């Protein structure tokens, strides 16, 4: 059984709870073991790296150090922002022994770098697991058109965050969607920014960016946008009604997480996968694949 340290991050227990529910359900069905990092803290996200360089490294380094107590070689973070903070620790502390010591002097348990960061999508899109998914698909998502939306920080900047996917036209999620029997649409906004925390600090601009993404997805013929980052998902799903009001449009575009789609194809119950937690009603999409 493949084992990974699993860092849910604050979102997977709150706003992105369906990402956590579906991740666990799908992992179990595929024989992947996700071991939660004990007593994990918040990675600090953009608030920490806007505030203090050392703080922005110490918070995620504490988590990585705790992951080293688990019997694993790799850690995954389903949230792109958390992933990017872990990547920054690996990159910066891996190149600067003095900085590593400085960060470790702040921690009770030192970070050694023993547990390596793995790109979350990659634990499903690697050829072995993809073959396993294809084998276990019970309800192919025939006819469902999916706009794959990766989130900036999983793929950018490639030198720091990952080495397995193209930052301008990533394919890992597209390959997963294809394995489920659905059709990934060609569209230009796969990695465009949703505005992230500008939803709180500069809402008008965030609304504009989300409108662009939703419009392109609709015009590309997508039935839904599959998300890989809980912040992107919240902006597109929860704030969609704000976008529709401001621009006088109606998208009603469901924004499931890619793990929820894997779960559907594996024949898992939409409730277990957290579909009722989505703000934009996914019923049209579920009907199309014959599960509602």
């Amino acid at each position, binding site marked *: 059984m493949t084992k990974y340290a699993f860092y849910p991050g604050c979102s997977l227990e709150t706003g992105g*709870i369906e990402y956590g529910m579906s991740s666990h359900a799908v992992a179990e069905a595929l024989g992947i073991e996700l071991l939660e990092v004990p007593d994990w803290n*918040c990675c600090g996200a*953009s608030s920490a790296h806007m*505030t203090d360089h050392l703080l922005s490294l110490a*918070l995620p380094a504490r988590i990585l150090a705790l992951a080293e107590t688990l019997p694993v070689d790799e850690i995954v973070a389903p949230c792109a922002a958390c992933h990017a903070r872990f990547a920054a620790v690996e990159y910066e502390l891996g190149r600067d022994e003095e900085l590593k010591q400085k960060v470790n002097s*702040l921690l*009770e348990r030192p970070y050694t770098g023993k547990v390596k960061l793995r790109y979350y999508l990659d634990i499903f899109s690697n050829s072995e697991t993809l073959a396993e998914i294809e084998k276990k698909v019970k309800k192919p998502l025939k006819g469902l058109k999916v706009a794959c939306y990766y989130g900036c920080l999983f793929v950018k*900047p490639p030198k720091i965050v990952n080495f397995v996917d193209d930052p301008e036209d990533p394919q890992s999620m597209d390959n997963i969607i294809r394995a489920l029997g659905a059709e990934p649409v060609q569209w230009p906004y796969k990695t465009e920014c949703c505005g992230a925390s*500008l939803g709180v600090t500069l809402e008008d601009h965030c609304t504009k960016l989300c409108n662009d993404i939703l419009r392109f997805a609709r015009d590309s013929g997508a039935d839904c946008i599959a998300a890989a980052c809980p912040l992107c998902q919240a902006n597109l799903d929860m704030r969609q009604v704000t976008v529709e009001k401001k621009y006088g449009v109606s998208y009603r575009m469901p924004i499931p997480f890619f793990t929820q789609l894997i779960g559907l194809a594996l024949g898992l119950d939409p409730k277990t996968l957290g579909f009722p937690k989505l703000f934009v009603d996914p019923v049209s999409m579920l009907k199309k694949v014959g599960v509602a």
Partner: protein
Amino acid sequence: MGEVNLSQVMDRNRSFVDRVIEESGQDIRQCYQCAKCSGGCPGSSAMDYPPNQIIRMLMLGMKEEVLKSHTIWVCMGCNTCTTRCIRDIQVAAVMDTLRQEAVRAGYVDKAKLVLSFNESFLWTVRTFGRLFEPGMAMINNLKTGNFMKDMQFGLPLMLKGKASMFPHRIKGRREMKKIFEKVQGGK
């Protein structure tokens, strides 16, 4: 921007520019103004100077103009600029350094919303160990005076089981407090 005597400005602010290079670890002098960073920037339409101009202004030592700009607070850190820079400059990392410099130098007029968001966010992390969104939103709204901001989402989030009334407290809270105290000088 008005008139600026560049050679005088450059001399006066050389130490500032050197510090930005040192802190960010990015040699901005490598920039030759191809402007790919600005072409792909999702924030540029809301900025007063696009990212390539900020880099050029930095090279010219225009400290005040840069630190007073809207640009550094609109940047979301999506790293599109860093990804596309053909001179290998991590532009988003420079923006992080500039935000920290602006706070240090007291240029916070245009940053009030971002700073109060960051402070509210980090207060909950420092106190509980994890982000507590209802607490963060409440503190943030009190700080900004925008009391109803995003409150329409509160009840639906609770009803969907996506927000809890109470924070989760981690065991390592003392360690968290220590980290914050050491990096921020006991603030």
